[in-house]
């Protein structure tokens, strides 16, 4: 299954030209068309694809690819390496406050997985020796507070709530005081889903940010998102300023091109991926695995590791 998809198509492109001897720039252009299609089919944003293909083309022409015995593999390697480096090269870790009390703010569009991911993150932090607390700052969605309370119970982490308060920034602030007072070292703020074009609600997030000065503002993005991923990521990054991205729902069959798109337009690293609905289904992000996935080459690293 390894190298299915893109690589096979590239083989096809180059095969036609075998016997002709060396490959030309036109052959590379043909190959780049396949790369472009593969990326678009994986939901990578159109503009991101264009930039990417241009820069890969430059690299491919600049090296000894054309004269090599396995030009298709060479091109796949360049494409892969370029994707990996664009997605950050290596895994980016969470940053904690040097003062010892860290605030993490979760934000994103509706239904992307914020509340569930709050639970997963709390669970992850606990396993890493932290003492997290959750705060319910979604005052809009029906039963959002109940949901976070159940989530908290499931991972055995306390949840701060103020059921009658209509000011999420006040809830966040009070939660912070309470968490510090009681000796917790990480506070995770769950917020309501919102559209990046909704000014009132974006301003609400800005107010929460001003009051709590989070060390990590994490944008939760659904991996099944198509071309719109860049709009959401850009909007949240410009209005709120994000520190990282969590990509959810990667346990399905999406190629997850949204990951590259969101990273590429914000420049902010993807820190974790969600791979299920259970609370242990959170993994640190690995750019090389994601690259293989987007290119349709099978999740080779994961396979190797699991073997």
């Amino acid at each position, binding site marked *: 299954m390894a190298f299915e998809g893109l690589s096979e198509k590239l083989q096809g492109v180059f095969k036609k030209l075998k016997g002709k001897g060396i490959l030309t720039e036109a052959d590379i252009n043909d190959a780049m068309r396949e790369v472009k299609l593969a990326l678009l*089919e994986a*939901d990578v944003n*159109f503009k991101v694809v264009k930039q990417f293909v241009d820069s890969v083309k430059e690299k491919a022409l600049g090296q000894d690819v054309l004269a090599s015995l396995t030009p298709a593999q060479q091109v796949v390697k360049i494409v892969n390496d370029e994707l990996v480096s664009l997605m950050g090269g290596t895994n980016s870790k969470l940053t904690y406050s040097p003062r010892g009390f860290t605030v993490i703010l979760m934000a994103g569009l509706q239904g992307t997985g914020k509340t569930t991911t709050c639970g997963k993150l709390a669970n992850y932090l606990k396993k890493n020796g932290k003492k997290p607390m959750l705060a319910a700052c979604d005052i809009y969605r029906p039963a959002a507070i109940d949901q976070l309370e159940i989530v908290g119970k499931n991972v055995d982490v306390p949840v701060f709530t103020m059921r009658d308060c209509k000011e999420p920034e006040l809830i966040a602030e009070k939660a912070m005081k309470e968490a510090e007072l009681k000796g917790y070292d990480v506070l995770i703020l769950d917020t309501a889903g919102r559209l990046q074009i909704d000014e009132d*609600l974006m301003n609400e997030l800005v107010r929460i940010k001003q009051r709590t000065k989070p060390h990590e503002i994490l944008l939760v993005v*659904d991996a099944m998102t198509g071309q*719109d991923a860049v709009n959401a990521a850009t909007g949240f990054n410009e209005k709120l300023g994000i520190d990282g991205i969590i990509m959810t729902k990667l346990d399905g069959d999406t190629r997850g*091109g949204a990951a590259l798109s969101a990273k590429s337009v914000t420049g902010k690293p993807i820190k974790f991926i969600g791979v299920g609905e259970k609370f242990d289904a959170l993994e640190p992000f690995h750019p090389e695995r994601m690259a293989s996935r987007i290119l349709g080459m099978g999740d080779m690293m994961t396979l190797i590791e699991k073997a």
Partner: protein
Amino acid sequence: MAFGVKKSFFGRLQEKIEDVIFMRPEIDEEMLDELEEVLITSDIGMDTTMKITQKLREDIKKLNIRDPEGVKTRIKTIVKELIDKGEAHQLSEKTPLIILMIGVNGGGKTTSIAKIAKRCKDQGKTVLLAAADTFRAAASEQLEVWGNRIGVNVIRHKEGADPSAVIFDAIQSAKAKQVDVLICDTAGRLQTKKNLMTELEKMNKVIEREYPEADRETLLVLDAATGKNAISQAREFGEIADITGIVLTKLDGTAKGGIVITISDEFKMPVKFIGVGEGMDDLKEFDPAEFAEGIFE
């Protein structure tokens, strides 16, 4: 929430397409290429995009279209023909009716149920809701809050209960009270999860067995921001259930919802409703003519 952000997505797509058409003095391959780009960046799949532009090319020749205005009218017709499924866009008016809402996680099933329940109630029908998402934290509570707001009853069991049992109970209750419309919420599930898809099959069987006299709708909820994965969703959910329509949610955002066109092209499923906000009135009937008109006008 999300008030005041209702700028129509059709409007935005239309602006982009007009940019492409009117910025070019003549109809040439380059113009068609750029048009292709617009379609692709609206999440319309590659195959459907090619099909649309290919048809457009042929039509331009065949009909001797010479001006950008003519091209515009032509694409509009092509798109409309692709998405128009005739009568099928309407929700069944027969009673009793049972609606099963299915789809991947977080697409907007529960919220759309509230909107449809409100709509049916406004039409003078009696409505009952079944909280057959017994998995996600506070899913039943969420549906109950909606039920209270709209003034319709909700049948629920404990978290972790068998969803088919909830549906079974809801059907008995619907029969006893002669309810016009019973709407069943289900847990979000990715189409690749075999056991969860089997669970859905079981719910389906319970409905078939227990409520044969009811008319049926199975609505697949799709988030407008979804990319190519929507095709796999339509295919896999379509294998398990006889999908009678699609609810396309979150069209109040910046997502173009071009998946509608791809899905309409590749499957028989008509879009029945569009979601344009988080409130119970933020539901519109899908009108293919308006959709096609809206893109280009």
